[in-house]
């Protein structure tokens, strides 16, 4: 074991136990280690496979450099054991591809006589070790074990750093709902599963999506935010999927779409509930088949992206109403996260107000230190239909108007001082679908008109046939 890693791990675990987490290091079973062996000499390949298989690793072998290269494009390995000279593709190119897929993959280079210089160069470029042919079983076992251990420790360090270090500086708040959101983000940091974030406008859905991306293994790749409601369907399709040359008038050259450019990264689809049926089908293909077609293309392009989507609509209700595809809903909603409205976390308002005050005062180059009691009281009793975004705007405006080192009531918008703004919201615990509301409403109207269906259909603004169809469905379901 590398002594530096051991010391670092010990330090991190001490810090972690101070935070109340008593979880220890759990050795990774060798059966969960994926090993790729690449050698164009069949006998050497079989020998290595036998030795590593006995060690309990999941072994994949390849005798062709080209095939191994293709395999590394789509699959991650914990350790790659490769010959340096493989024909048209060499071990260094395989190493680059393996590390492109997963920077923590350890690569061991095997060399024949006379190619030691190349092996040393490979080590300089990031190979874990090199082995000279003929391979001695004890030596290869030992080197692979060290590589596995290094990878395990690197993973563990990352996990511990995430647990104790990053506390999501952009997600402000200590209320139980926000703490559980932060915990959920940490829990899913190792996962590649799609996430659906729900919550009212201005609750910080994009911030949460960015935090999920930042803690994931994709954090070094692109985070791409797309507002599905802001573009027309054609523009959205062109922006997301790109186009081939001559796909339409004016497409003088081929262009990669945003989804393609976010390969191995994360795509944030905001207001996903506003996507058209055609766009939903295209996105489903990306999610399901992990491939996309540029506009005007005849062949698909493979993409590896994680999709985080967000909406302030009730997607389940939209599915029930046939507006949103249920298969896409299930694919997007593997992990769901609901962000509370600001009125559900009023204990965080002073903290958030102080945070925005510091930011705005710095931007405005003003020395403002806090809020008067009256101003703080107004801020904490307001309903915030626009949530955190509205609070941020109120503070920014107050900073611009403030003449002293305290924000006073008169610096706040007049409606906060002059109006009571009673705000109420849908109860999130017992939300009804549109279908349920429709059913209840039809029953209520029928009751009001003495169960006269002609009268009821007039009140409902639908024809009698539609009313009968809806009633039939209700009876059938019941």
């Amino acid at each position: 074991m590398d002594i530096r890693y051991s010391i670092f791990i010990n330090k991190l675990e001490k810090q972690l136990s101070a935070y109340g987490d008593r979880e220890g290091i759990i050795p990774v079973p060798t059966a969960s280690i994926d090993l790729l062996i690449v050698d164009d000499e069949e006998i050497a390949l079989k020998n290595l496979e036998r030795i590593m298989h006995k060690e309990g690793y999941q072994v994949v072998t390849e005798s062709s450099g080209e095939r191994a290269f293709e395999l590394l494009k789509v699959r991650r390995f914990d350790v790659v054991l490769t010959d340096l000279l493989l024909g048209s593709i060499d071990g260094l190119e395989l190493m680059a591809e393996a590390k492109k897929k997963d920077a923590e993959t350890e690569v061991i280079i095997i060399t024949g006589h006379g190619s030691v210089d190349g092996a040393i160069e490979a080590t300089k470029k990031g190979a874990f070790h090199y082995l000279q042919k003929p391979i001695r079983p004890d030596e290869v076992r030992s080197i692979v074990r060290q590589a596995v251990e290094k990878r395990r420790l690197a993973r563990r360090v990352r996990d511990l750093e995430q647990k104790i270090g990053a506390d999501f500086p952009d997600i402000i708040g200590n209320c139980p709902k926000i703490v559980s959101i932060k915990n959920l983000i940490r829990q899913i940091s190792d996962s590649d599963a799609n996430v659906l974030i729900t919550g009212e406008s201005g609750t910080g859905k994009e911030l949460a999506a960015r935090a999920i991306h930042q803690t994931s293994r994709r954090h070094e790749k692109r985070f791409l935010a797309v507002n599905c409601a802001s573009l027309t369907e054609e523009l959205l399709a062109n922006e997301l999927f790109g186009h081939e040359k001559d796909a339409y008038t004016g497409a003088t050259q081929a262009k990669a779409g945003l989804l393609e450019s976010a390969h191995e990264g994360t795509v944030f689809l905001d207001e996903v509930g506003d996507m058209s049926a055609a766009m939903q089908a295209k996105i489903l293909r990306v999610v399901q088949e992990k491939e996309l077609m540029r506009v005007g293309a005849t062949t698909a392009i493979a993409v590896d992206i994680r999709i985080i989507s967000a909406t302030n609509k009730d997607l389940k209700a939209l599915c029930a109403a046939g507006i949103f595809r249920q298969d896409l809903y299930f694919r997007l909603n593997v992990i769901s996260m609901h962000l509370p409205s600001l009125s559900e976390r009023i204990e965080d308002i002073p903290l958030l107000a102080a945070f925005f005050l510091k930011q705005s005062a710095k931007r405005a180059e003003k020395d403002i230190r806090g809020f008067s009691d009256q101003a703080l009281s107004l801020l904490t009793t307001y309903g915030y239909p626009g949530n955190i975004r509205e609070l941020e705007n109120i503070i920014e405006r107050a900073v611009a108007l403030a003449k002293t080192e305290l924000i006073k009531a008169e610096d706040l918008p007049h409606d906060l001082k002059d109006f009571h703004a009673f705000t109420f919201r849908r109860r999130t615990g017992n939300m009804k679908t549109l279908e349920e509301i429709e059913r209840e409403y039809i029953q209520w109207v029928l009751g009001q008109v003495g169960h006269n269906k002609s009268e009821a259909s007039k009140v409902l603004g639908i024809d009698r046939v539609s009313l009968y169809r809806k009633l039939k469905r209700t009876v059938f379901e019941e």
Partner: protein
Amino acid sequence: MVELKKILILFEDGKIRKESIAYGIELGRRMDCSLCVLMLMEGTEKGNSSIWESVLNGAIKTIDDEGIGAECGIRYGDKTSEFLKFLAVGPYPSAIVWGSNAGVITERGRKPGHWFTRVAENVGCPVVSPTIKKK
């Protein structure tokens, strides 16, 4: 990224509380979004539309004078179904400001039996009812 796109100010039966317009304007300005004013009238049009249109135009002028984009509409018929139809066809509002009878929604609760209180809890956005504070 624009968060709040549209705020709906909702009136019924020609009753308009000025504070709801003033609050809608403030909220719209604060959130950088446009306003949509909807008047729901019980029954059929019966030639009274010009009266209600002029009432609504006055509200729109006030909003326009403040430099905020606004659109308006009057719907006749059953208020609940007209309101639900309005929500179903247009872009969903990010907040609804209730602008008529202040007693419908108060700090203590909602007026039982009123059509809006039955549906308001099921709309997917915050519903605000502004009233003037007593000095």
